[in-house]
């Protein structure tokens, strides 16, 4: 067609007399001398197109990829798949419910049907959604993802370290070719199953990874650290990326045998002095102290200046707004010392130490630092003690706002510890305006226990009534309702759907009822999925 297209682009008025076209179909038209040049060109073009289409010659087949491997899990029922399709249809704010539904399908050992895969892969642009999607796309989804540039993140799936007891067969391939999320998951798994292998993998690629990837992989690596990891971490402590250095310093602080942990303990010991037994002559105390029952005494001395040898260990000189310099230096050191250290040097329990700290001048600073240390070291005894201690103090002084670290501790505590404490909060009505309810509810990860779910529902029905005088529920209420809808125990679905409240018909549009309907709508979806699985 090239020659005739050229003539048509230029136009017959400018192209002058032309040679006949070298095409069998055009020759039929050429035989008709009565036609104008324009008509001749048009009919030739039409005849050539029809001729070429009728004579279409197929190519030789290219190499066809091997078919998808056999699925190892069963495909979920149409009813379960319909729930996922409905969530994909919804706006972006259904992603928590989507993640919950995909996780439930994965936990029930199912995968999504193939027809749904392109939609679910296209829909996943959040890291947490992708993580859940990877668990339900099965062999077919991973096979499919290899052909689409935008779906490379889905090519490899590593089950979470909690549920797997051996490395996947393609572990080496995932480590070298997988996307960052898959590699981080794999590294976490390797830390659980074969720490040496994990160290070998990470040190092998360390110099060729970008800073973001180094930070992420190091974060995944820092699980169950021991003395064998010290040389590698000390090397990464000198990394050119501040994020990597900070991660490495924090990790080294958590390993008992590391020099950094030893230095931090020595520095902390200089600032915090704890003594047990009755006070006597030569007491270390400058001020009277609580902890009267145990006779434990405590003194805190903040550093006057920042020693320059602290800086290479990650102690920052400049405090954030609202914090004094000396308090900031103290906070950074003590929060990187294992809380059990204070028990070892004083011989008293966490609660006795906390009681002793109650009346010292810098009590709040010490509590903040020890709370951070308890969460960093996952010191469960200490987390329980700090939380309970702070809660009791709050009950005694209801006008003081509770410290922020209460929610931080709840977020790290195992659900078995967090739920009874959250029940206390709900029973006390402390969050009746939902100010921090969202953070607190979100802290209890996974599906709530039946007992906690019932306590929550009772609280919801009670406070929904008492606060519905406000015309519009706050964002905290909305987010709290979403968190609750995603986590409520399945035994409470029917109770959640039997609300004692009805629409307020008198006051126009009822935004509270809209919130309730949205909560119940999510419960209904979960119920449908639960029944379908």
């Amino acid at each position: 067609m090239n020659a005739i297209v050229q003539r048509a682009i230029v136009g017959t008025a400018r192209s002058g007399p032309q040679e006949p076209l070298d095409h069998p179909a055009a020759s039929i038209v050429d035989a008709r001398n009565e036609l104008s040049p324009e008509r001749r060109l048009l009919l030739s073009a039409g005849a050539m197109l029809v001729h070429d289409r009728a004579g279409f010659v197929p190519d030789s087949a290219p190499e066809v990829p091997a078919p998808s491997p056999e699925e190892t899990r069963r495909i979920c029922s149409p009813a379960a798949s319909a729930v996922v399709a409905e969530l994909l249809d919804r706006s972006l704010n259904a992603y928590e419910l989507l993640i919950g539904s995909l996780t439930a399908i994965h936990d029930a050992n199912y995968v999504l049907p193939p027809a749904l895969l392109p939609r679910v892969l296209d829909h996943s642009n959040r890291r947490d959604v992708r993580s859940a999607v990877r668990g339900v796309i099965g062999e077919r989804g991973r096979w499919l993802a290899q052909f689409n540039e935008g779906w490379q993140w889905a090519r490899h799936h590593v089950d979470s370290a909690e549920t797997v007891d051996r490395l996947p067969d393609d572990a080496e391939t995932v480590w070298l070719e997988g996307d960052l999320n898959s590699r981080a998951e794999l590294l976490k798994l390797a830390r659980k199953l074969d720490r040496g292998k994990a160290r070998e993998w990470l040190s092998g690629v360390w110099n060729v990874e970008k800073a973001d990837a180094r930070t992420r992989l190091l974060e995944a690596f820092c699980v169950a650290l021991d003395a064998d990891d010290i040389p590698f971490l000390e090397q990464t402590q000198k990394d050119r990326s501040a994020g990597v250095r900070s991660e490495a310093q924090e990790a080294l602080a958590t390993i008992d045998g590391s020099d950094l942990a030893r230095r931090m303990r020595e520095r902390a010991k200089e600032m915090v002095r704890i003594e047990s037994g009755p006070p006597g002559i030569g007491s270390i105390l400058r001020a009277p102290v609580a902890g009267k029952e145990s006779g434990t005494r405590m003194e805190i001395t903040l550093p006057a200046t920042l020693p320059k040898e602290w800086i290479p260990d990650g102690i920052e000189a400049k405090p954030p707004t609202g914090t004094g310099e000396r308090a900031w230096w103290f906070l950074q050191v003590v929060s990187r010392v294992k809380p059990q250290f204070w028990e070892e040097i004083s011989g008293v329990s966490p609660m006795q130490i906390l009681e002793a700290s109650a009346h010292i001048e810098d009590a709040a600073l010490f509590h903040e630092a020890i709370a951070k240390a308890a969460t960093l070291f996952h010191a469960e005894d200490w987390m329980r003690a700090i939380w309970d201690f702070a809660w009791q103090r709050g009950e005694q002084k209801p006008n003081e706002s509770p410290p922020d670290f209460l929610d931080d501790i709840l977020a790290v505590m195992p659900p078995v510890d967090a739920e009874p404490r959250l029940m206390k909060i709900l029973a006390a009505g402390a969050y009746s305006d939902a100010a921090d309810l969202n953070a607190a509810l979100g802290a209890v990860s996974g599906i709530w226990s039946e007992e906690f779910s019932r306590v929550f529902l009772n609280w919801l029905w009670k406070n929904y009534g008492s606060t519905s005088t406000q015309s519009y529920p706050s964002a905290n209420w909305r987010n709290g309702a979403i968190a609750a809808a995603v986590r409520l125990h399945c035994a409470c679905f029917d109770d959640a759907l039997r609300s004692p409240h009805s629409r307020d018909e008198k006051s126009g549009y009822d935004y509270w009822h809209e919130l309730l309907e949205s909560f119940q709508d999510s419960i209904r979806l979960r119920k449908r999925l639960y029944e379908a699985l």
Partner: protein
Amino acid sequence: MELTAEQISALAPDASSLAAGRKLGGPKDWRGTGRDAQSLWGECQGSALYQVKIDRGSFAYNCTCPSRKLPCKHVLGLLFLAGSGAHVTEGAAPEWVSSWLEKRTETAKKKEEKQQAAESKPVDTEAQAKRAAKRVANVNDGISQLDLWMADLVRGGLGALDRHNLTFWQDQAKRLVNAQARGLAGRVERLGEIVSSGPDWPERFLGELGRLSLLTEAYGRISSLDPRLAADVRQMIGWNVDELDSPSTLQAVYDRWLVLGQSVTDEERIRVERNWLLGLSTARTALVLQFAFGTQPFPQSIVPSTVIDGEISFYESAFPQRAQILKRSSDEPRYSGKLVGSSIAEMLTHAAEATACQPWIERTVGVIADARLAPVSSGPWQLCDADGFAVPVARSPRWTMLAMTGGVATTFAGLWNGVAFEPLGAVIDDVYVAISERAS
């Protein structure tokens, strides 16, 4: 057996109706649901209590809600509910369902009687001939003017065309509508869409302009054409099939017709539904078109992947493809079994024969056995057959197709458009599945 989620999705008028329908797919909003051999019913609590009924034989439906989108979310919701299995039990249809079915039977009967009466009504042949002659004169004027317009385009050169806006093409199309040549008007509008639509647009534009010239050339010699091809030419110019064929001249074929695929397009205020059917015994293929104004429902409910047991009549053509459903005894929700397929070479030969009979044919059905999709990263995907040949595959809905077939060799059904294979569906685990964009 009920419709699958994919089939229900294909029925939905748009994505929001589908989402709303899915939402009503649980038992919470329903009461008094039931089914028997002929129908499916339920009452849905919306702003009021709506009664929904579905004829399981033809998938015709009715809902008492005021929605202008059809099928409404309640109909879709009931289909989803029935598809999920557990919540719709067998029972006797209530009066409001049986009376609707009776009314439908009655209406169909009246329509048939009316049609028979219209056919037997004496015709004023003189007036009819006068009207026909006037129309021919109008069309002739329009075509003469179109030929001049096309000659002007190639005289000035295609290189100057991209400076024209849409009005340039619409004005010419309007002139053809006034000349009662609506078919040609549509072709001129489509020409305007090709300009600047990709680097190779001059070649595609010239090809289509050339085919349009062949059509006006053929019309100039219509009296010398084979009557069947002449009917095709008249239809492409703008005569309706009903004006050309009386039902008695149609060629009726009885078979079990598998609905290979369906597309719905909006053409101004009219929605056009194209249904591609395959006769399971005769291996004949048919294109059944339905039209609906605005949000009105299509006259018949035709669901992809179902099998229509009935009689289809083909309109007169040099390559009969367009057809209407004449009698419909029952529908099967899906087809399980093998489809007789061909190789790529055979499909292309069939398409060449069709083009030889009717040079303006746009698409022919191809059923390719033992074929696999090759997702080529540079260039169009390919459909490859067991003989080692391949044809390009149109873009949509190729990802769903690849996901469902999993790269395994199977039978694909689709449309060959002269340059690419447009997939309609495939046999998955021995069941034919029409694949739409809105998979669920």
